[in-house]
């Protein structure tokens, strides 16, 4: 395969097709609409299911219905749409069906704007719907990474029968860069034994999140928590740059993490020992590795395109062992290398 110039939204959509996506339901919302547009053609060409729903509420419930049949199903959206999907996300979690959702975050709250943002961190990692559950949240920092994460997302969703959210942002969705798509994989031709397909020669399968009786619902919750614990043990992912000798550790994910690579390069030119820790899974958070790094660095600078949502997790895992500083921009403002570098330089003088 060769590399080609790809826009983020088109790249992840085509990667999904090539990973055997069987059903896509979505509703247009900037900055991810190109994904829906791309799939409107490609899914039909491949003889698969594509439907533009009447709302994000309908879209996620269509995805939920499709997932109940055991096919690879997904949707993509942005913050305001994800908010409408919260109902379905909770039902999906409670019913234990595999679903992949891509959220290209934009500025909020409210209608906000369509510029890149990371202000849905808490929403996705901690409170994607009512009840006790966490989606598995993947955070790509480049077009190649979101392509690769689509395949991973389906694998994880199906392995654990769980909800996986890919946390992109407007810049991952809108920018173009050179990347390689995976080869075309055939769609699965088998149906999981738990799926609904018509009760031919077997007892009926019922997929529901309703468990009347507190003990029964607690049993479901215990099962969900055990699954989340297993995900926590097995699926933590992160990337490090120049952490071996770092005095100051930058902690950032996605687009902010990518910007921090440039900050790190500039700082190193000045002889400042700066490293980068970039979580690729926001839930489960790579807390053990962060905790180890906290033992060896003198300070941490968290950089986010939000008011400091991941910051709270970093504080929780570092537990006051080293000072934690924060550089955040909100409302769709992308932090520039120079402004972060100024913080790094100031901290180096302390």
């Amino acid at each position, binding site marked *: 395969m060769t590399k080609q110039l790809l826009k983020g939204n088109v790249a992840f959509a085509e990667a999904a097709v090539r990973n055997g996506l069987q059903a896509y339901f979505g509703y247009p919302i900037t900055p991810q609409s190109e994904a829906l547009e791309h799939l409107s053609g490609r899914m039909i060409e491949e003889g698969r299911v594509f439907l533009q729903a009447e709302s994000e509420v*309908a879209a996620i419930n269509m995805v939920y219905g499709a997932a109940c049949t055991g*096919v690879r199903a997904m949707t993509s959206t942005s913050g305001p749409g994800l908010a409408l999907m919260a109902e379905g996300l909770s039902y999906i979690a409670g019913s234990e069906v595999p679903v992949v959702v891509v959220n290209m975050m934009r500025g909020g709250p409210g209608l906000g704007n369509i510029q890149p943002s990371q202000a849905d961190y808490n929403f996705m990692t901690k409170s994607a719907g009512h009840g006790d559950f966490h989606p598995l949240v993947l955070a790509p920092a480049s077009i190649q990474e979101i392509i690769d994460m689509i395949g991973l997302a389906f694998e994880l969703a199906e392995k654990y029968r769980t909800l996986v959210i890919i946390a992109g942002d407007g810049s991952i969705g809108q920018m173009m860069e050179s990347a390689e798509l995976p080869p075309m994989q055939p769609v699965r031709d088998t149906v999981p034994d738990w799926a609904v397909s018509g*009760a031919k020669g077997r007892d009926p399968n019922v997929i529901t999140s309703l468990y009347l009786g507190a003990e029964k619902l607690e049993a479901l919750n215990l099962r969900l928590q055990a699954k989340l614990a297993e995900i926590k043990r097995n699926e933590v992912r992160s990337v490090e740059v120049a952490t071996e000798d770092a005095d100051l550790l930058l902690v950032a994910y996605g687009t902010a993490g990518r910007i921090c690579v440039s900050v790190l390069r500039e700082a190193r030119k000045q002889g400042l020992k700066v490293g980068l820790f970039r979580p690729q899974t926001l839930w489960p958070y790579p807390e053990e590795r962060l905790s180890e790094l906290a033992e060896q660095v003198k300070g941490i600078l968290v950089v986010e395109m939000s008011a400091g949502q991941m910051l709270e997790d970093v504080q929780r895992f570092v537990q006051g062992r080293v000072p934690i500083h924060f550089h955040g921009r909100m409302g769709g403002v992308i932090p520039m290398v120079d402004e972060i570098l100024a913080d790094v330089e100031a901290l180096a003088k302390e």
Partner: protein
Amino acid sequence: MTLTRTEIPEGMELVYSYPDSLTKVSSHYCPGCVHGIVHRLVAEVLDELGVRENTIGVAPVGCSVLIYNYINTDFVGAAHGRAPAMATAIKRIYPDKVVFTYQGDGDIAAIGTAEIIHAANRGEPITTIAINNAIYGMTGGQMAPTTLPGMVTTSTPTGRNCEVAGYPVKLSEILAQTAGAVYITRQSATDIVGIRKTKRAIKRAFLAQIHGLGFACVEVLATCPTNWNIGPWEAMQWAKEHLGGFYPVETFKMTDEVKALKA
């Protein structure tokens, strides 16, 4: 004494039996509620069409949330009002399977209005059974979108004042306006004749799906003695007179292809 099918004496004919599509458990429904009757009608139709093993039902939120305990097919449980969205996806993945939703008036005509209108308008070849008893049963008798003007509920204690609470929604009349609907009818399960006609309508609605004709919905006028605070018999009479008086029992849309089906 119960006879098995093979034990039927020669010269006699089996005219009534327990449908295979109905599970043998006691129901949780209140005395005088017609959910049990309509469940049975659906089960009889699935049996007669021979599609039980090829059917996927979508359960609503409301009193019939546990329908999958009674209808012996694969089922998924939808969020409140979203059954048509789930059914849409399942039917598109399995065009050859029979997919139906079973919804109450609050589920279909309030919180799920968008989903049902758009499923109908797209002409999804699914079958919808809509139970209209003019009240929210499971939550304890609050106003439904179909609550009659002046009707007392726990959230309209002095009677539904339409100038404040809005007017009753005539769902079938609205669905009949959608281009994708092929069969929209309102029936009443409050007496023997009505129950027989309701069954024929349900069968026609499933046949419309099996023939791939488009969206079909059977609205069924029903009772809720518990939340109407009257007895089962009185409730049947009240439904016939008052619900039937406001919501005409008629077929609002039936295409020629649907008309030609032998139900």
